[in-house]
């Protein structure tokens, strides 16, 4: 019961935000003369045959993977009140370096993949580390420096792509790095559809899903269960109280940014290792910024971020069928945008509600001194997770 209630209050804000966003989007559609119900039915229609439906699900999951990693990277920063807007630049740099290194070496299977992952994480961490160093040594706001570094990263990536790392022939329509050989690629997980007795779709479910799940669990344990995570969250809640408790705030900034950057480095890998095998001019962009929205919607909690990423991926997938039905696909963007606005408002409202409930409960109990039975009693909606 109490667990359900806690879960209920946790989900209250995001659910409210999604509802508000859908309502606003519906109003906008109605204003534009588009039937909101028709749009909605197209969006939830995954296909006619089981094969089509599974394909759609795979497409959603494949899209959700990088979004989940991006949300996770942003959330690590958020947890200690660091606004890492530089995730975009961090994953671009990481991906192109990983693609170049992956294409340049030949190693036995798992080692090759591992090397690519390590390179990506290291490059992401270094790129984020610049922000951290600037912040702790010169007091530069991480917001400013990480935005600046995004531009530098984009410029640098295109220079590397057209210059030293160019692997595509002259005159090709897309410029790309050299292809990563077979040993550096991650196979799909479509085997599980056969095991489950479902139709095997033509599209491959990225094998990186396993890595992402593992990263999600590790990050959750690290933040929620370890001393390091406690220090990090304490710094986010109150830097002054954290340093009085013995946390070295500057070192914490560096550690959190490195961790955030390392996770950001993974964002491009599902596509790189599972589909494109090279970094090219058409490589998925904007994931870093979407990550901010996903982290907000998921309340900086890995589980919530996973749900938020799937929701965003679901909305993204809908744009193609919407176009096919000659409906404006920008509806998707409107919903995604209003979710972000609504979630900020809803988080604040939900926070106030839970806080007020807790204050009421504590006033009521101020009469008799506490006794043993208190240890098993729980206050509804006590959320230990910080919100940015």
């Amino acid at each position: 019961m109490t667990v359900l209630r806690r879960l209920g209050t946790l989900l209250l804000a995001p659910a409210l935000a999604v509802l508000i966003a859908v309502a606003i989007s519906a109003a906008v559609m109605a204003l534009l003369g588009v039937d909101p119900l028709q749009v909605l039915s197209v969006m939830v229609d995954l296909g006619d045959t089981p094969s089509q439906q599974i394909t759609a699900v795979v497409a959603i999951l494949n899209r959700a993977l990088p979004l989940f990693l991006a949300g996770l990277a942003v959330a690590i920063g958020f947890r200690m009140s660091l606004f890492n807007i530089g995730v975009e630049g961090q994953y671009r740099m990481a991906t192109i370096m990983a693609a170049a290194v992956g294409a340049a070496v030949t190693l036995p299977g798992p080692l090759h993949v591992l090397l690519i992952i390590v390179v990506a994480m290291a490059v992401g961490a270094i790129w984020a580390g610049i922000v951290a160093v600037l912040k702790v040594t010169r007091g530069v706001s991480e917001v400013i420096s990480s935005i600046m570094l995004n531009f530098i990263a984009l410029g640098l990536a295109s220079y590397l792509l057209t210059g030293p790392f160019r692997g595509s022939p002259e005159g090709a329509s897309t410029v790309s790095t050299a292809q990563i050989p077979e040993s550096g690629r991650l196979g799909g997980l479509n085997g599980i559809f056969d095991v489950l007795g479902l139709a095997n779709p033509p599209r491959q479910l990225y094998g990186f899903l396993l890595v992402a799940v593992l990263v999600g669990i590790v990050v959750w344990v690290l933040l929620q269960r370890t001393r390091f995570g406690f220090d990090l969250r304490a710094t986010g809640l109150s830097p002054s109280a954290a340093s009085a408790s013995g946390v070295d705030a500057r070192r914490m900034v560096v550690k959190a940014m490195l961790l955030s950057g390392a996770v950001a480095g993974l964002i491009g890998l599902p596509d790189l290792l599972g589909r494109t095998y090279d970094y090219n001019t058409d490589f998925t962009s904007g994931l870093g910024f979407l990550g901010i929205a996903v982290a907000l919607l998921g309340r900086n909690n890995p589980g919530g971020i996973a749900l938020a990423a799937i929701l965003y991926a679901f909305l993204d997938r809908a744009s193609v069928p919407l176009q096919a039905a000659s409906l404006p696909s920008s509806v998707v963007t409107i919903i995604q945008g209003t979710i972000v606005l609504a979630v900020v408002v809803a988080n604040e409202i939900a926070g106030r509600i839970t806080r007020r409930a807790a204050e009421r409960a504590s006033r009521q109990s101020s009469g008799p001194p506490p006794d043993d039975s208190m240890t098993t009693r729980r206050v509804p909606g006590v959320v230990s997770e910080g919100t940015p």
Partner: protein
Amino acid sequence: MTESTPLAVELRGITKRFPGVVANSDIELRVARGEVHAIVGENGAGKSTLMKTLYGMHRPDEGQILVDGREVHLRSPNDAIAAGIGMVHQHFMLADNFTVLENIVLGSEPTKGGRLDRAAARRRITEISDSYSLGLQPDVLVEDLGVGDRQRVEIAKVLYRGARILILDEPTAVLVPQEVDELFGNLAELKREGLTVIFISHKLDEVRKVADSITVIRRGTTVGTADPATTTARQLAEMMVGAELPTPATRDSTVREAPVLRISHLTVPGGVGSRAVVDDVSMTVREGEVVGIAGVEGNGQSELIDAVLGLRLPAAGTVLLGEEEITDWSTRRRRERGVGFIPEDRHRQGMLLDAPLWENRILGHQTRPPAVKGAFIDRKAARTDTSRIMREYDVRAPGPNTPAVALSGGNQQKLIVGREMSASPRVLLAAHPTRGVDVGAQSVIWELLKDARAEGLGILLVSADLEELIGLSDTLHVMLRGKLVATVDPRQVTPEVLGGYMTGGHETSPAGVA
């Protein structure tokens, strides 16, 4: 000031409660028209809460506010302004890149055809400036003004909105002596024009110079009024501190030989170009000894505590914990080795308000059992131990999962004291341990400190409550402008003598000085 003319402001039985902060209870205030009325009290006594109530920034839970004899309900500062009440904040709220004129009219601009009517604004401002001798230059940029001029702009801003009653919150805190004199000249002008001034301060000499009558606040309630002509600063100080409080006195010395904390020639630099905030301070705290630091706030006490805790780097000097030199240690290492800490501002340094109590139990003890198992947090043990602290230290809350913000100030403080004591520290840095807590929690905390002292804990105590300092301390130092200027025997010293040292009044050593 006869009974027939209604009072400018009258507060009857104002009570304001909110969790985590000292409340106002049963405030009685009578301010006659055309007088300068001072409200004095220690920091944290509830002056600001009261003034916020009067300025409509929050609504009282009980009581009445009467302005010019009529009851008013102030829901926002706008209501207060409409009722003729204006507030000059301690921290100026001016836009630096605007001119004096623009700053004054900001928010209530006279317009002509939708545009700012500068001519009309200038007329009004010149009028105000002349009639109250404020000497304003409307076209000067605020960033080019000195502190005294800025304050006059703030006053003009309030007058421009038609205020007849001005609240000045610690107006002299930011001024140098000459500017203070100028301000008092301005206040006399305001008074002559029939305006009422409510003047908040804790500087007793100034209050006696400028005020026509005085109301004293202590622990959230008004304890009396005084006539500045017949009351001495000492008598006022006694009213502020109070004589009938539960006594913190400890008379049997438990001081042992072994020193637990030795500070020698410690110097902490101030900001660039300013003098040292802690200047060549040396002292020793022994086992079972309470060493008190008296001083007007802002004379380096906080910085001294920060330096001992490792939050500030000293420029010179050493700190020894027992026999080990800890000057270069990190804060964490110091805390692990037995430095306990009760911060002066528990919300800033002592608690994670949005986190549950059990996480607050861990704070500051992240590397020690029972909260931690290896690299992991032991949530179960932390919760159990939080329940134990709540039981043993009488922290009243629903349970360990309650967020800290939901607790009253006294309960938060008891949790902090319990948490620090549970780690059996060797030395405890206690800064204002009973600030902003109710009388019940205060005596509990005093008992806890006395018990710990008897068991051999060394305590470095900083407090603004002179009774507390005199009652608890075995040795008492006075800190002024970063230096230890006197060491007195708490068994013989009186608050008046102590107050003299704190303000630099005494330079010679009378009887009672060790």
